[in-house]
């Protein structure tokens, strides 16, 4: 049971981070379907840092890894920002391209590094196990992960930033009614750029948190297995509000955790279901929940529509 709670918290913190990323981007008016790609690139940056810093003190490792992941995610999210804000491209195409590109790019880079070290090594893993030990700490029986703390801090910061600061309110205005925002002197383009970049930062940190959640080293060929989209489902279920996102993430995280730990729970093993069922569970649950809750969605009104100054 402790294992279940442990994994639920782990996956929930990843989902919260990435869903908050989506939330900032969508509140500014840009649908970020490229979160999955951002996660992969952030994860790559973080994993390479972890590998490079294997023997440093834990604090240095944590700070450097989170920073590296955040910066990689932010730079990668520029692809979305430039195309969709300034060139008014279709946000769905660009997001999809970013997802495919993220996995391909990370695989190419990681494999190139592995091959240059050893021509026979064709794996797409980064050897970060040594550095990963710095990320974990124990409280009694619980093995916790520093990302849970970081997530909690970022969750509170996001809530305050969105609802209690001038920046957050202006950001949301750009997603609800950009023309009105522009008419009172807010630069819609810059606000949207900031929204997307924040989502890149959060998505990148979410990426490294996700790949270090598993026991074994992550294969970059696999991308992040639809986790970015699960986060979007969490965001929609959370009605684009940080505190609700946190609750939704706990629910989804629990179902995701089940596929890792079901064999340790007696009442589940007695059901004798195949492991595939547990793998499918998070996706099925999210489809059902989306079907039930999307009807009266509180999505930002202007999301997905490129802003043009002269247009009525």
């Amino acid at each position: 049971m402790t294992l279940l709670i442990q994994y639920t918290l782990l996956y929930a913190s990843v989902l919260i981070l990435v869903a908050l990323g989506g939330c900032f981007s969508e509140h500014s008016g840009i649908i970020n379907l490229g979160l999955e790609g951002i996660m992969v690139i952030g994860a790559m940056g973080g994993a390479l840092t972890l590998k490079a810093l294997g023997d440093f003190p834990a604090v240095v490792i944590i700070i450097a890894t989170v920073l590296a992941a955040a910066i990689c995610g932010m730079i990668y999210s520029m692809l979305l920002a430039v195309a969709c804000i300034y060139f008014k491209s279709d946000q769905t195409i660009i997001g999809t391209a970013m997802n495919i590109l993220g996995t391909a790019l990370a695989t190419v880079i990681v494999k190139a590094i592995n091959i240059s070290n050893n021509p026979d090594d064709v794996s797409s893993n980064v050897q970060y196990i040594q550095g990963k030990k710095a990320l974990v700490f124990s409280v009694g029986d619980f093995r916790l992960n520093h990302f849970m703390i970081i997530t909690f801090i970022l969750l509170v910061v996001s809530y305050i930033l969105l609802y209690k600061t001038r920046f957050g309110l202006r950001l949301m205005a750009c997603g609800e009614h950009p023309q009105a925002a522009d008419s009172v002197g807010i630069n819609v383009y810059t606000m949207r750029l900031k929204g997307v970049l924040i989502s890149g930062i959060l998505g990148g940190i979410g990426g490294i948190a996700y790949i270090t959640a598993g026991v074994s080293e992550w294969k970059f060929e696999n991308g992040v297995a639809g986790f970015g989209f699960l986060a979007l489902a969490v965001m929609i279920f959370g009605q684009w509000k940080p505190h609700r996102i946190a609750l939704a993430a706990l629910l989804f995280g629990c179902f995701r955790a089940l596929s890792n730990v079901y064999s340790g729970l007696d009442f589940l093993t007695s059901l004798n279901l195949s492991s595939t069922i547990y793998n499918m569970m998070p996706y099925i649950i999210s489809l059902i929940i989306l079907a039930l809750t999307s009807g009266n969605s509180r999505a930002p009104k202007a999301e997905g529509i490129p802003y043009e100054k002269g247009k009525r």
Partner: protein
Amino acid sequence: MDPNKKSLLKNDGFQSFLSSIVCILLGLLIGYIVLLFINPAGATKAILVIIKNFLKYPSYQAAMKYLGSTLVKAAPLLLCSLSVLFSYKTGLFNIGAAGQYAIGAGLCLYCALALRLPWFVCIVAAMLGGALLGVISGILKAFCNVNEVISGIMLNWISLYVVNMMLTPVKEESSHYTMNIANVNKDALLPSLGLNALFANNQYVTLALPLSVICAIVIFIILEKTKLGFELRATGLNKDAAKYSGMAEKSNTVLTLAIGGALAALGASLFYLSGYEQWSVTSSSVPAMGFNGIAAAFLGGLSPVGAIFSSFFIQHITEGGAYVDKTMYCSQISDLISSIIIYLCGFVLFMKHFMNNMLQKSENKKALKAASENKEGGEE
């Protein structure tokens, strides 16, 4: 002044073609730069290998044989891209093509291997399965307001696991691949119609090739020449206007995704029933074919005829990627190039806008010049 030339540059189809060429060239260029970063020594050779693909074989026989193999995989890709572009015309982004493709593969292999049915029954079963997935996405979109991209992704993963589970009983005992159709049920193999003789007796070249091209033409006719196609396109351009003029926009949404799903699943059945490849029941990622279909659809300028060429091109560089020198690079470099191409396709609208602006400017100049000349002529 040459009036023909002017009209060609203004032609929307020609502009799409030009934009696609620009996307391809830029994509290859960026791919080349990435290769240079990884290892400058072999970059030029590697990019040439990717572009050449089967042409690298000196003998005519071998080249034809591998051209055949590329075509065998280009046929399902074409159908996936048709699935994507057909839905896109109605304003829907069918990212679920990958899952519909997986379900198609699962159902056709199950019918062929477990139920021992002939090939055309397998194809129909696959198409029904794909259409069902499309209907689920469509209903969720039309009646529950669920974004079709998110439901599509969820369905992709669900169908991947379902197919793995469904095909486990028909896998080889010693491996995790499904049984070879040729050994179990020859009736389920697609008839070759003698086409294999054209490609140095490549036995995988079958009916699939002409059938996929016919599908492209049928989709073209449906979209451009029928009432249904007109309604679908109108719904895509402005949903509210379509609803106002009496079109059933909700059932059109469901119908579009159902047809899209059937197309992607047809692609899968045409591929797996050729016996070229077996399904691995431990697959942990959704088939890439569906996502490459998105690349092909946009690269082909969202036209069914363009998709025929773009599918071949995408498959061509994907196959070419398998030939790069593995001691320096990995084959994913071609995925990288095709994803860059999709990204650049997002800019096509901008490129067209840019071209039209340039044309407009040069025309304005000419008009001004002509006007001033006329004026001078009048004063004389």
